């Protein structure tokens, strides 16, 4: 499997580390909503088809990537840095952090 790192270009999967389901939403750090934390730490979608995943290019530039991978075909339809991620950016904007 090859993942096209936006910085390094296409690289073999051995250079990457899977860092979990990209659909997870981390609760606010001070949140005491245990259900939300449980969902974040343990709940996984495990879809048959397109899946949002976080991969780190640990054997390259070490950036984290948001990868959409089809779990049936291994086809990767998009790769982007998690930094500059619109969802994260929007959330932080809403929280007044940006």
């Amino acid at each position, binding site marked *: *499997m090859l993942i096209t790192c936006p910085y390094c270009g296409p690289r073999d999967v051995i250079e990457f580390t899977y860092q979990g389901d990209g659909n997870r939403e981390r609760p606010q*750090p001070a*949140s005491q909503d*245990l259900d939300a934390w449980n969902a974040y730490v343990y709940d996984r979608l495990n879809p048959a088809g397109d899946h949002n995943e976080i991969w*780190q290019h640990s054997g390259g530039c070490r950036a984290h990537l948001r990868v959409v991978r089809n779990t049936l075909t*291994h086809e990767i339809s998009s790769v982007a840095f998690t930094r500059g*991620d619109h969802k994260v950016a929007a959330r932080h904007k809403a929280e007044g952090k940006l």
Partner: protein
Amino acid sequence: MSPRRTDAGGRIDRLRTIRFTFDGTPYTGHAGDTLASALLANGVTLFGRSFKYHRPRGVLTSGVEEPNALVTVLRGEVREPNIAATMVEIYDGLTAVSQNRFPSLAWDISAANQLGGKLLSAGFYYKTFMGPAIGPLKNTRFWMFCEHFIRRAAGLGRAGTAADTARYERMNAFCDVLVVGSGPAGLMAARAAADQGARVILSELEPHFGGSANWSGETIDGMPAADWAARAAGQLEGYDNVRLLPRTTVWGYYDGNTLAALERVTDHKERPGKGEPRHRYWIIRAKSVVLATGSLERPLVFPGNDRPGVMLAHAAERYANEYGVLAGNRIALFTNNDSAYRSALALKKAGAAIVAIVDVRPELSSEMREFADEAEAKILSGHAVVATEGGKALSGVKVQRFDMANGALAGDTRSIQADCLLMSAGWSPTIHLASQAGAKAEWNEALQAFLPPKATQRWIGAGAFTGSFSTAEAIAEGRAAGLSAAGGTGTPAALPVVEAVPGDPDPAPVFEIRADGESFVDFQHDVTAEDVRLAHREGFISVEHLKRYTTLGMATDQGKSSNIAGLAIMAEALGKPIPEVGTTRFRPPFSAVSIGSLAAERFGDLRPERLTPMHDWHVANGATMYSAGLWYRPMIYGLSGETIEQAYVREARTTRESAGIVDVSTLGKIAVQGPDAAEFLDRVYTNMFSTLAVGKARYGLMLREDGLAFDDGTTWRLGEQDFLMTTTTANAGKVMQHLEYFLDVIWPELKVHVTSVTDEWAGAAIGGPKARAILAACVTGTAVDNATLPFMGIVHGKISGVPVMICRLSFSGEMAFEVYSGAGYGTHVWEALIEAGKPFGLVTYGLEALGTMRIEKGHVTGAEIDGRTTARDLHLDWMLSKKKPFIGSAMMDREGLIAPGRLELVGLISLDNQPLNGGGHIVEALDEANPHDSIGHITACCYSPALGKYIALALVKDGKVRRGTRAHISDPLRNRFGPLEIVSNHFFDPDGSRMHG
């Protein structure tokens, strides 16, 4: 002159004689021969014994698909079994032996298995090794006793026991176009793509480029096809953008157009060149792939079809045309299609007599009849071979009238004298790689073959691979595929002109002749047509189940010659057409791959290892090195005659009495820099770091998101925005990734950079009552007294002219200091410290003494932070800040993590003065015969010089409230049982008066 070598012809070098042995008998051959062609030339017909029944077998094919002629090649003490004789190029001194026979190939004792053939039918292993369900041997081990012999009788070659000293390597390659197969289609594709400027790799599993052109006897552009192919390959050699890989089998097609190939670099050489690998494992990332892998001829299934002397038609044609070897002098052919007629002509031309062509088809084209006449062969159309005669070599065949509409045999059998029978059941495209890459193959009724599936990755097929079996089609498709793969359109140019023997590519839909006797479908696994039907009768109707139950297609040849016939027989039994029965998906590897090539360079002394800056000093000064992950660390610095325990006890005792020094360069070190560094550390550590003053260090604990303990270490504040974090040696990489994840994914707004600086610093920890005096004796530029360098303070100074950073912290529990210098000065500073310590009795100590002192102090490491323990379990709850959230804070108080009954850290003292074993269990009541009811386990143990006792750390259920009580170690594996006392994990100096000074 060899008995079967033709007087002229072939592409061997008749001026070069090669000497080799087979089963100890010396033979000669010529340069360019394979072991198979050279043995055939010498009149050898018996190559091996079959897998289950030990039936005599000859050579069936001339290539990679060979199921029968498997041999073991010996190189000195190293033996490599199960090599197809058709793929072994002979060299002077080649030593090959046959397999699966005892005492000799000709007289094999286990051949008696043939007589009991019925016993070894489909599902034999499944049925047999269940053991007798009734009778006197029920529930005995009798069958297990038999299994040993049965398994030994059935099998392939024996693996060797000598270490393989050959070198194997891995090679990464990138190209625009990978062309697999170098027949006319592949050569055209490579040339077309190369002319477009594409980077091209052309791989060929045989030694010579050209594929079928090397033996087809056809004419291309007015010259023999073989010459045309040699010229084409020669031209490609002149291209800078083309890499030619002969003897290279592309065996795997993976995601992202990544292909795996095995190059046999030196197998054909008497000895490898200096530094030359035996095999090279190529990992090829191709933008697009041209599959020009050709096709494989299929055998017919009829009684006695496995007798030595029965061979595929094209194989004999190839032996004659390419190697100048006649497979027989009186040759009969048995076919369901036209291609065998070309083979007959070629063999006639080479000097053999063609005694008959038996064709299952009642009607033949006039062209085929003319070819038969030209070959002076008797035509028996509408006939079939129903038996073969002879022992270890063929002497004749029996034929009978055959009705291909219903498979019925009629009339008298007649015998034909022949020493060789060639068969052809048509051709199957070699679609393995395409199948590996994705979708299911599609059945083509006319060709009676599975054609390549629709492309799911970037590949394009050409030639026989696509079912276009003529050379003219291969040439046209090859060029088109090459152009398309390279993204070019190209100007129309004249294609090379082919003169070939014509023929209809469509075979008759006949694969099996049902008559009395064993008809083999899978030669290598000894699976007969009757086995397939038996499997069906026993209820195995799925092709996947059929395959596993009968083991059809599961031998090392992966059913290259047997798949279609097996399917056809199954389909007939089921009363369904072949496409409804379906086919199995091909899996890598296409053909056998050496394990050595997969291990490649990560083997033996080439494994990566990490050495500290002082490594050579340790080795030169008597350290016994210990591998900790990839690192090498001193375990002890033993004196002569000392045991390990004596050495570490001496080292630890001396440290506590005067001073000791240990190399701590392996600790993970991470630079945490930036305006938000302090805030970031507050979030990742359970305790506060924003309040830490510059020039001070603090011990910190990290949790995982789920609230369990993750790692601990000290972090030093070197500047307002500049921290140096230390981690445990084992977790350095994991902590780094943890920090990077949160910065990149969760808190991208934080301005923090983290960088691994583990290797930047050499670290020496010096501790003991005399440690400060030793530093005072060698450090310049700073004082090291209590006021200047208090506990957890940091100073900068110099030792022997080298800048150092000194932090006063303690793992040993003594007054101790960690001295950091640039790694390039590590040994210099270390030696200066040793020199300064001499008058004070300074001792070097290793991991064992380090561990001993940490156990005495009750500090935790990875053995206790094991992914299941919480901060509370380890009595580190004092580090959990209530003033701020941190990673893990929300989850750490979950019900199960604070419930009673958890394993908690305790100390243990052995009461029988015997060592406690790591991993041993703790029980309340001892029961040596039936150990049970563990209340915990030992994580670390040692002899404590400070206490004069054997002690341990352990995780024990409700450990805190058990302090002061007694229990037992129960370690049945090592037969260690004994009483112990449960105590606090802080064995030694619990109030820390020694380190605080």
